């Protein structure tokens, strides 16, 4: 093929991709029996974006992504994918998107190559089977049966089946759930690569670090609704400080264990620092208590921490525990819902 033709094709691809959003949800609702899985969802994902749906199990992430994938019909609302809808454009859409589902088990007795050859045959256009094997770094396993693959390799095979059609839009439903840390990082590198190739990626996860690491924008979901939307930095910014200080106090010189049991018999009640005084310290933005542990969101940690120490000493309290960490999406979720993400 000549260079000139290549250029024309690039041009055509740009036109085909269009300028509208990759995904547009308006007022989407879905109920299963007595559970409102998705409760009035509006989302817009731009072309080329890596968008994360983040939330605890049961937040409605999978239902949402399956509605986008055309596998579940919403009760209400409109779904537009690549400018098409599932009622009239299903055939074309299936050719243009790639899907990795939670917990698909490919037949154990087929080889990696045979599995991919079958999936490749469903698509009119796409990359070669060899290329998909290379992208998923399964070259050494191409003749191996699926039953003998590790969890990470199976997940990369699932990614490869989503990639053989060279999709414009890729849906990944909890791609790293159940993988060991090394396999997770391996898969993140693969997603990075796909991002740089200019594909739109929509993924769900309940891992904060995964969303922070991979996503350009994140929607935090809870009980079928989006409760926060923005870049990971923006969302972390809403916590009010870049760092979180956690501490526990006791009135007497006791071990922490007894200071948090709140037992009137021993008399070792957890201390009650005067919150107003803590909030008056420059750099301290907010305060909450969770299971006897006080949490402050703080900016300019190096200036605020000495003053927190001084204030607690002044109130005649004893610090039984003290630590700090950078604010994460986990803290965003905790601030918004009062629950930890993995409580359920």
């Amino acid at each position, binding site marked *: 093929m000549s260079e000139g033709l290549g250029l024309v094709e690039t041009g055509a691809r740009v036109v085909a991709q269009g300028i509208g959003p990759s995904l547009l949800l308006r007022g989407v609702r879905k109920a299963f029996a007595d559970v409102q899985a998705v409760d009035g969802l509006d989302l817009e994902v731009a072309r080329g974006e890596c968008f994360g749906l983040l939330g605890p199990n049961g937040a409605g992430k999978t239902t949402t992504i399956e509605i986008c*994938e*055309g*596998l579940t019909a919403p009760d209400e609302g409109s779904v537009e994918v690549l400018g098409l809808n599932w009622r009239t454009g299903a*055939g074309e859409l*299936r*050719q243009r998107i790639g*899907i990795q*589902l*939670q*917990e*698909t*088990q*490919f*037949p154990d*007795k*087929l080889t990696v190559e*045979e599995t991919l*050859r*079958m*999936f490749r*045959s*469903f*698509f*009119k256009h796409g990359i070669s089977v060899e290329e998909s094997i290379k992208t998923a770094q399964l070259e050494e396993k191409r003749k191996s049966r699926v039953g003998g693959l590790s969890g990470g390799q199976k997940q990369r095979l699932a990614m490869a*089946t989503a990639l053989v*059609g060279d999709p414009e839009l890729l849906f990944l439903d909890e791609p790293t759930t159940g993988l060991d840390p090394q396999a997770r990082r391996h898969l993140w590198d693969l997603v990075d690569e796909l991002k740089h190739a200019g594909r739109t990626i929509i993924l769900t996860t309940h891992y904060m670090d995964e969303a922070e690491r991979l996503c350009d924008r994140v929607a935090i979901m809870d009980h079928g609704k989006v409760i926060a939307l923005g870049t990971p930095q923006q969302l972390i910014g809403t916590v009010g400080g870049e760092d979180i200080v956690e501490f526990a106090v006791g009135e007497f010189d006791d071990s922490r264990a007894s200071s948090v049991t709140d037992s009137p018999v021993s008399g070792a009640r957890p201390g009650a620092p005067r919150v107003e005084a803590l909030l008056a310290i420059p750099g301290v933005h907010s305060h909450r208590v969770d299971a006897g542990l006080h949490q402050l969101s703080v900016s300019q940690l190096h200036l605020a921490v000495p003053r927190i120490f001084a204030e607690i000493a002044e109130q005649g309290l004893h610090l039984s525990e003290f630590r700090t960490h950078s604010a994460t999406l986990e803290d965003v979720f905790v601030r918004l819902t009062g629950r930890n993400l993995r409580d359920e």
Partner: protein
Amino acid sequence: MNKLQLSSLYQLTMVRFRLFLREPEAIFWIFFFPILLAVGLGIAFRNRPADVLQVGATTVQLTQALAADKGLTATTVDEAEGTHELATGRILLLAIQRADGVAYKYDDTNPDARTARLLADRAVQAAAGRQDAVQAGNELVHETGARYIDFVVPGLLGMNLMGSAMWGLGFAIVEARQKKLLKRLVASPMPKWQYLASFLLSRLAMLIIEITFFLGFAKVAFGVPFRGSLWQLALLCLMTSLAFSGLGLLVSSRAKTMEAVSGLMNLVMLPMWILSGVFFSATRFPAVIQPVVRALPLTAAIEAMRGNMLQGTGLGQMMPQVGLLAFWFLVPFLVSLRIFRWR
């Protein structure tokens, strides 16, 4: 890689074929089990040469008279001992010398004993000088096609086609549903009809191997006759397999677990194993249930295959059976297309 190999129908069919061949147990049940069964039944029901019957007599003269018949062996015993041997089944008949002639002691409900009675009396009368009024000679016939093995081979063929089609489709589909593979496939642009068609196509390919193997063995080992057209027999096998593929698809179109589909399979197949005349003629069942027996696809399949192989009946004379098989393919297939659960 040529165009055929790139087509999704080809790929899906090849996947079915590979998955089948990589399952050693399935190969045993489909290829070797029917042969083992045929061998076992062939041995158990083989036609033996006419037996020589054991009889007893109370005098030496009588014993000699009886032994003169090729069909009898006789021993001399006293009456008490002979009665005991009769009771224990060592002899079939005891001939007792009386003053006024001979008395035969035997069980008239035992066909062999009745035969012994006829032979013994003939021998005794001949020894006493009776002449045959008419000269008679024998022309012996051992006809293939009338033996039990000839009867049972088409039955086993039908039973095997039923089992392989139903288990083959049912288990594979429910397993794919349980492992969420069906859901993954419909999330891809795969045409749904091709997935179901790939089962029928791979079944067809396996069918050719299966019936050639089994019928070839029956022909070589037992000399089972093939009196009808082989093409018509092949067509009957194809229709039988399609009918049971349709039923298998229907049975597995909603089931979510292996246990559920196994139960449904047995519910569908068990009545046919019993009623459809695999091992004995379906006409032995009472007239009241004959309409049910006749409506079953396996009854139609086995009748048509027996007609073809044993009597050489043409398809034209077996339209009711052929029509019934077509009905049992089309109706379950169309129903399951409507109610099939892809996730």
